[in-house]
C-alpha cells in the first residue's frame, strides 16, 4: 500500500514536471497588484508560446529579448520594467500601470477612460464593402428588382405594430411601418444597390431576421441582419458537364472556393452586389481558369495572361494630349494597385485615351509614357510633391472645401482625418479668387484644418470646431448619409 502511494506521488510529480515544460495558461500569466502589472514568464516557452504572449499582452519584443538575456532593469519606450528571477526557469516581470491621464477635470471628462483599445482587441474595422452575396434560408423573405426591395416577415400575426429599421432609414423606429398580410408582414422600399443592415421592431422589440444567415455585430444591441441589393449577374453558358464553376476576381482577392455559381437551365449563374468601379474576374470550371467567353473586354494581368474585366457604374475618359510618337502609354493609379502592365491607353487623333469605370471616391494616378512616369498635364489637382507627386481626381465629389480669404497665398492645402493630417497631400486650387478642393467623403464626421503657406488655421467659413489633444482646435465637418 505504501508503495502504491509512493508510486502515485512520483507519478504526480512527473506529471507536474512534464506539464511544466509546455504549460502556457494565459489566465495565470498576468496579475495586477497595487497599481502594478506582474507577468510570470517561463523561460522554457517555445516560440509559438512566446508569440502568443506578445499577442495577448502587447509585450514589446525588445522587452522579451531583455528578459531572456537576463537583464534586471529594462527600459523600452519610456516604460520601466523590473525583472526578478523566481527559480531556474521562472521569472517575474513587473511595471507600474501607466494611468489614463485625466484632463483638467470637469466631472464629465472623467469618463474619458479610453475604450478605443476594445477595437484593438479584435473588433475589425468596418471597411467599405467590395461585393456581397445574400444567404437567406427562406427565399421568400427578400426580393430586389428594378430598385425596389421587398421585405417579408412571416408570422407574428398577433403583433400590433411592426416596423422595419435599418441603415437605409438611419435606424428610424417610425419611418418604415410594415403592412399585415395573410401570412405575415410586408413592406417594399426603394433602395440603391449596396449593403444594408436591418432589424424588425415587433411591438417595440428589436429582432433580427431569423431567415437570414448573414449577421453582423452591432456595438449596441446584438446582431444586425445584413442584406445586399444586387447590381450584376455573372453568366456562363454551356459547360453543362462541368461539376463545379467558381467565380473569382479582384473583388474577393481571387478566392478559389468562395463564390460557387448555380446552374439554371443550362447556364451557370451568380447574382451579386459589386461595388461601383472596375473589376477583373475569371471563371474556374472544374479547376480550369477561363475568361468570360461572352465579354470582349479583357486586360493583361501583368504576368502574361488575360482577365475579363467588368465596369459597374459610369465610365470616365483619361486623356493625354500629344505624345503621338510614343510607343506605349499606360495609365496607373491607386484604383488598380499601381499596376504598370494593365491599362494600355489607345491612340486617338490628339493623343492617347482610355475609358475606365470608377465609382465615387478619390483617386491618384499617373501616366507612363514609354517607361517615363508623368502627372496629367491637364489636371491641376495633385497630391504629394517631387517624384511622389500624383494627379488627383475626385469622382462624384460630395463636398468642396473652400477658403475665400488669402488670395495672395502661395500654397494652400487642406489636411484632416480623411488624409492622415498630411499637410502636403491635398493641395487646393485657386478658382475665381477662392481656394477650393472638391472631395468625396463617406458619411461620418471629419476634422480638418487649412494650411496657408505653412500656417495651420481653422476654416473661417465653418462655425463648428472642437478642441484637439494639442491644445488647439480643429474644424468639424459632418457628411450626412
Amino acid at each position, binding site marked *: 500500500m505504501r508503495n502504491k502511494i509512493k508510486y502515485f506521488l512520483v507519478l504526480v510529480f512527473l506529471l507536474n514536471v512534464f506539464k511544466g515544460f509546455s504549460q502556457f495558461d*494565459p*489566465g*495565470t*500569466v*498576468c*496579475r*495586477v*497588484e497595487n*497599481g*502594478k*502589472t506582474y507577468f510570470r514568464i517561463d523561460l522554457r516557452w517555445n516560440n509559438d508560446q512566446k508569440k502568443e504572449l506578445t499577442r*495577448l499582452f*502587447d*509585450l*514589446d519584443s525588445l522587452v522579451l529579448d531583455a528578459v531572456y538575456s537576463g537583464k534586471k532593469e529594462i527600459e523600452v*519606450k*519610456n516604460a520601466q520594467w523590473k525583472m526578478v528571477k523566481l527559480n531556474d526557469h521562472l521569472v517575474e516581470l513587473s511595471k507600474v*500601470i*501607466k*494611468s*489614463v*491621464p*485625466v*484632463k*483638467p*477635470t*470637469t*466631472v*464629465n*471628462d*472623467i*469618463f*474619458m*477612460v*479610453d*475604450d*478605443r*483599445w*476594445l477595437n484593438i482587441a479584435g473588433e475589425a474595422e468596418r471597411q467599405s464593402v467590395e461585393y456581397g452575396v445574400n444567404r437567406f434560408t427562406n427565399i421568400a423573405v427578400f426580393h430586389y428588382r428594378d430598385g425596389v426591395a421587398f421585405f417579408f416577415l412571416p408570422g407574428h400575426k398577433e403583433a400590433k405594430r411592426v416596423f422595419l429599421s435599418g441603415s437605409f432609414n438611419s435606424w428610424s423606429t417610425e419611418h418604415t411601418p410594415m403592412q399585415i398580410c395573410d401570412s405575415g408582414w410586408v413592406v417594399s422600399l426603394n433602395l440603391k444597390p449596396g449593403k444594408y443592415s436591418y432589424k424588425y421592431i415587433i411591438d*417595440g*422589440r428589436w429582432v433580427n431576421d431569423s431567415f437570414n444567415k448573414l449577421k453582423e455585430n452591432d*456595438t*449596441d*444591441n*446584438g446582431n444586425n441582419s445584413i442584406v445586399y441589393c444586387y447590381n450584376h449577374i455573372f453568366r456562363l453558358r454551356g459547360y453543362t458537364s462541368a461539376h463545379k464553376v467558381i467565380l473569382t476576381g479582384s473583388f474577393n482577392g481571387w478566392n478559389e472556393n468562395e463564390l460557387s455559381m448555380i446552374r439554371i437551365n443550362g447556364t451557370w449563374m451568380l447574382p451579386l452586389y459589386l461595388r461601383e468601379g472596375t473589376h477583373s474576374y475569371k471563371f474556374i470550371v472544374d479547376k480550369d481558369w477561363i475568361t468570360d467567353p461572352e465579354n470582349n473586354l479583357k486586360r493583361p494581368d501583368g504576368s502574361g495572361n488575360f482577365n475579363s474585366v467588368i465596369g459597374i457604374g459610369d465610365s470616365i475618359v483619361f486623356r493625354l494630349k500629344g505624345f503621338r510618337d510614343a510607343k506605349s502609354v499606360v495609365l496607373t493609379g491607386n484604383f488598380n494597385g499601381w499596376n504598370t502592365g494593365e491599362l494600355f491607353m489607345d491612340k486617338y487623333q490628339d493623343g492617347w485615351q482610355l475609358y475606365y469605370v470608377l465609382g465615387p471616391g478619390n483617386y491618384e494616378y499617373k501616366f507612363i509614357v514609354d517607361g517615363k512616369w508623368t502627372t496629367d498635364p491637364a489636371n491641376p489637382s495633385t497630391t504629394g510633391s517631387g517624384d511622389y507627386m500624383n494627379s488627383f481626381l475626385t469622382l462624384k465629389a460630395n463636398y468642396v472645401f473652400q477658403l475665400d480669404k488669402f488670395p495672395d497665398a502661395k500654397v494652400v492645402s487642406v489636411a484632416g*482625418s480623411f488624409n492622415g493630417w498630411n499637410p502636403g497631400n491635398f493641395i487646393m486650387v485657386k478658382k475665381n479668387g477662392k481656394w477650393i478642393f472638391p472631395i468625396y467623403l463617406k458619411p461620418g*464626421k471629419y*476634422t480638418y484644418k487649412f494650411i496657408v503657406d505653412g500656417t495651420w488655421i*481653422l476654416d473661417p467659413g465653418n*462655425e463648428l*470646431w*472642437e478642441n*484637439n*489633444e*494639442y*491644445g*488647439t*482646435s480643429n474644424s*468639424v465637418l*459632418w457628411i450626412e448619409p
Partner: protein
Amino acid sequence: MEAKVDNIVGNFLFDTGAAQLVLNSTYFRKFLTTTGGEGTGITGSTGVTRHAQIKILDVAGLIYKEQPADVTDLGHIENRRNIKVLGLFGLGMLKGLEIVIDVRHNELRLYRLDKTGNRISIHNNEFRADVTERIEFYHNILFVKVKIGGKMLNFCLDTGAESNVLNSYAPKKALSTVTILRRSDLIGTGPGESEALLGKLNDFVFGEHQITGMQTIITSLDALSSTYGYPVDGMLGYDFFEKGDICINLVKNELKISFTKTD
C-alpha cells in the same frame, strides 16, 4: 436619445456618469452665457466647462424650460463612435423619476413617482427585482456597493461607459480574483499615452447575487477619485447593464436588477 434643444435636433447620450445637462461646445458655442475665456476664439482651452441657458429642451416627451446647462467639448466621444452627439443627459435631469434601462431591447423607460417613490400610474406594474441595493449620490454621481473577492468596494454607475472599470489600486484580495486576459499599450495621438488591461471578474457579487461572465478594464482611477474627493474603486458599464433590466428609483434611492434569464 433623440432630443430637441431650441430647434436643434440630434442625439443625446443618457449618461449616469454626467451630473446634469451637458452640451457639446461644437454646436452650442453660441449659447454661452459666460463670455470669459472665449475671446481667443481659435485656441479655446480644453477641459473648461462653461455655462449656457436653454429655452426649451424636449427629450422623449419630457419638457424642460429655461434649463441651465454645462457646455464642454465632447468631440472625443463623437470621434470614437462616429455619431453626432449634441450632449449628455445626466441623472440630475431625471429627479423624481424611476428609470428602467433595458439594454437588450434598446429601451429606456421613465416613470413618474409620487412622494414615497411609487409609480403614479396604476397601469404601470411595479418592477420585479431579483436584487435591490441602496444607491448613494456624491456630486450627483451615483454610487453602489459591490463585492469583489469578498471585499466591499465603491463603484459608480455609468451608462456612458462601454465596459466595466476596476481600479488598479483596488485591494489585493479583490484584484487576485481577476484573471487578466489581455493587455494593450494605448499609443494615443496626443500626450495621453497609457495602457489598459482586460480582465475577467471571477468573483463579483452584487447584493448577495453572484454575477458571472463579466469583463473589466483595469486601470488607475486615482485621478478620478481625487476629482470626486471620494474613493472610486471602479465603474459599472455596459457589461453590467446587459445582465438584465436595471431600475433606478431616484426617490427611494434604490437600484434594482431583474436578471435576464439565460437558458
